[in-house]
């Protein structure tokens, strides 16, 4: 895959500040009630309004993958539609690369959309009356790119997502996984700086889903873009997300890295999700270690063979990779960085507590 196909921009920062979305006849009244601490049900009863998104703020750094994880009805799809301005925002601000999307008129918004953002949809949102290549070229067609140019670009992106040879087919002739590759290619074809994913893999079979997740990771490594990814699958969230927000009843319960959520769940709700996660696969040595000051003395371990005789483990290694060593009788391990320098100490008891 050539870098030029993957795109030129490296993503732009996205900031969401105090975002509210209220559906119904009297949003202002609902906002007042909500400010007084009324619950969703109380507001619904009093005003007939539904709170879709409740005071959500977050930032996504350039090239970061930010995952919003929630069950159905949590407001996650509404949130991504607000951020992408597919629906109007009741209150709050969405800032993309310093530009306030919420204050933007239709014409400016169209300009931003044509150049900087794309979206991949749960049910693919493909156009059944267009061939794969014309689906992928749609964004360029809307921009007014000449037919030969947009078809050439679309053909390249179709190769990138592994659909070479299918360009002249219609979407219905493809399997679900291939259709979503078309959706992905269509989003990538306009070389966006920001990508929104609305549960893109939840309609796919488990094996295909894993392929698509790997595909996304590969693309993101080659050319990092700013990504907001919606999912209801916690395993998918920790696989893909640099940071994860757990959403419930329209608000964020907790935002953090996978390790933070697992080792330190803020609410019982978050804990429930983390319980079924194979922690030994997810947690790394760096996440569990006690950091040491540079140059601190390395505890002596007579059985060890590392610096100062201690057994060592790489900072990024998952717990499951060094578990046998701990079970073998080692009480502590020295965590080293990529250059072999000791950065922390990992005690068997720390690991036991984290896995328990």
């Amino acid at each position, binding site marked *: 895959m050539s870098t030029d196909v993957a795109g030129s921009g490296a993503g732009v920062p996205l900031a969401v500040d105090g975002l509210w979305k209220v559906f119904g006849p009297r949003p202002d009244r609902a906002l007042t009630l909500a400010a007084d601490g009324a619950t969703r049900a109380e507001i619904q009863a009093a005003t007939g309004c539904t709170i879709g998104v409740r005071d959500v703020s977050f930032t996504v750094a350039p090239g970061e993958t930010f995952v919003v994880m929630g069950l159905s009805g949590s407001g996650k799809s509404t949130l991504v*539609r607000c951020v*992408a301005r*597919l629906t109007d925002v009741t209150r709050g601000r969405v800032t993309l690369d310093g530009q306030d999307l919420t204050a933007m008129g239709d014409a400016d*918004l*169209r*300009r*931003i*959309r*044509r*150049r900087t*953002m*794309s*979206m991949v*949809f*749960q*049910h*693919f*949102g*493909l*156009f*059944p*009356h*267009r*061939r794969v290549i014309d689906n992928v070229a*749609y*964004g360029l*067609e*809307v*921009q007014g790119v000449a037919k030969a140019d947009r078809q050439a670009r679309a053909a390249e992106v179709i190769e990138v997502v592994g659909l070479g040879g299918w360009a002249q087919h*219609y979407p219905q002739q493809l399997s679900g996984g291939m259709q979503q590759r078309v*959706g992905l290619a*269509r989003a990538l074809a*306009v070389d966006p700086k920001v990508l*929104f994913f609305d549960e893109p893999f939840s309609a796919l079979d488990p094996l295909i889903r894993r392929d698509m997740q790997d595909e996304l990771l590969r693309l993101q490594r080659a050319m990092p873009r700013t990504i907001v990814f919606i999912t209801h699958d916690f395993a998918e969230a920790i696989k893909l997300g640099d940071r994860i927000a757990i959403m419930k009843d329209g608000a964020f319960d907790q935002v953090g890295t996978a390790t933070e959520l697992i080792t330190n769940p803020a609410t019982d709700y978050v804990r429930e999700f983390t319980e079924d996660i194979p922690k030994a696969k997810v947690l790394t040595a760096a996440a569990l270690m006690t950091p040491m000051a540079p140059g601190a003395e390395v505890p002596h371990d007579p059985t060890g063979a590392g610096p100062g005789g201690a057994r060592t483990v790489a900072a990024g290694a998952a717990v499951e990779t060094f578990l046998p060593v701990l079970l073998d009788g080692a009480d502590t391990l020295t965590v080293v960085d990529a250059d072999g320098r000791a950065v922390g100490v990992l005690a068997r008891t720390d690991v036991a507590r984290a896995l328990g």
Partner: protein
Amino acid sequence: MTVAAEPVADTGEPVPAPAAVDTAPAAPVSRARRLAPWAVLVVGVLALQAAFASATFPARLDTTFSDPLDRLARWAQSNRRTHPLFTGFFSPLTRALTWALDSVQGLLEWLPWFVLPAAVGLLILVRTRSRGQAAVAVAVTLYPGLVGLWPETMATLALMTVSVVLCVVIGAPLGVWCAFRPGVERVVRPVLDAMQTVPAPIYFLPMLLFFGVGPVAGAFATVIYALPPMVRLTTLGIRQVPGEAVEASTMFGASGRQTLLKVRLPMALPAIMTGISQSIMMALGIVVLAALLASGGLGQVILEALRQRATGRGLAAGLAIVAVATVLDRAARAVAQTDRTRWLGRRPALIALGALVAAAVAGRLAGSVAFPGVAETTLFDPVDSGVVWVRDNLSWFTRPVNDTIVGDVYVPVRDFLTGTVAWPVLVAVPAWLAWRVKGWRLAVFTAAAVVTMGLLGWWADSIDTLTQVAAAVVLSLAVALPLGVWAGTSTRVEAVLGPVLDTLQTLPSFVYMIPVVNWFTVGIVPGMIASVLYAVVPGIRITALGIRQVPTESLEASQAFGATPAQTLLGVRIPLAAPTIMAAVNQVIMMVLAMVIIAGLVGGGALGFQVINAVTRGEVGDGFEVGAIIALMAMVLDRLTQGIGQRLQPPSDR
């Protein structure tokens, strides 16, 4: 209804309050409640009958509306050339449409006869690559020429093409508008409903008033009749476009217009095509009637055949109309065929087009323009002989049938209703039924509708028409319901009935009026028989559909409890299919009403005669009144039967 409301108080008493009933304490109350409305009905009817036994209906508004309308018609007649309303609007519209009709017809007549079948065949071949379909289309296009009806067919084809194009040009944007603006739809929908419930000849009067006699009025009447499915299905199609596809388009920065043209309309195309097909079928149904407005063409041929009782020629022309509709439908589908993998490609298409033009020029130069006379309508002479044979040899059967229907059923019932029963009873009973079915609003509307019949001075004719409608409905249901249930339970029966029903449905109804008139002479019977033939089709189809749609699990559950087939049919199938069967009844009633009006052409009398008379002689005032009464009848009957259907729905579906 003040009359009916009064006896409510004293009906509570005659119902015995059985204190001895030891079940739920609510039982006696609910029983009294159940019986009260019936008591209201009985007491009310008896009281009204006693009070108004000899009263005739006071036709107070006899001329209130018809005179001004007649004056308006005369004014329109004399000012057609001068008044700005006509010179500024209707006349230019008429000229534009006349030009369109003449151009299309002129082109079709200028072309050598073989160009049209070739063009149709090539179009289908180029767009679908299906040789079979192309061959069928060519054969269908050739048929009218083979039976000697080529010029008339070209006139009808021009009328239908222009009407259907107008339907699309008006209906598609209107449908799109409705899809985006619920406010617009709230206004448009009731109008479309009315356009579909009101029998078609009713539209003809305003058309006559605005456009005068001729093909233009016929084209507009056709457009009005055929428009509703176009609008409805366009709206439906646009609404059915998945939200994600629209969002995807928006996310790429497409403007509203781009999303409409590149995503919404193409994705709605299958629904829009169904709309065009249905519009073509509707237009097919009305081109015969349009001949009453002197639009000429095949309709004229059929009307003449009806007058001369020439069954064969009528059948030939009827089939030619079906051919026109089929060719238009296939051609429209080929044009809308978007799956490019099935196209033949641009080069063959251009070669085909070139060959067609060359053939047309060559044909003109060689002078072979007119369709070579081959078989003419003599092809259908055996049909005429058959009809005559039946008339001459089966009179021992047809005569008593005729006499029984007229003498023993129709006349006594009509005389009983118009002579013996006091008119307020005939207002009160339908209103009571409406009240029971849908509540007081429909009751008031029903009462007002019935009173209007009398006030406008058409009491006797209205009751007469309603008697005919009732008789034809009873007959139709007696045929349609058992056959429908049978077809619903047996695939073999459905397979046998299918082609028969298809034929009855697609042939213009006039065609089977002709032999019936031959056998039963002019009068109410041919109209009624034609109504029955016309109305049993949807009756059987929808009933069978309802029976078939009953979930297999429910049937299996019934069988698992050891129910006999009869028990399953009566206890599970029919009750579960009841709402759909009611929809069949609704369709039967609406179609019978439409046909009983048209039967005015063959001596059906009453309102039908008045409408036909108004249309053919331009008696606008009477025509409008009678039209309004028929429209009211249609609306009341439609809502009543729909209301009953809703009451039969299981509670959760309501």
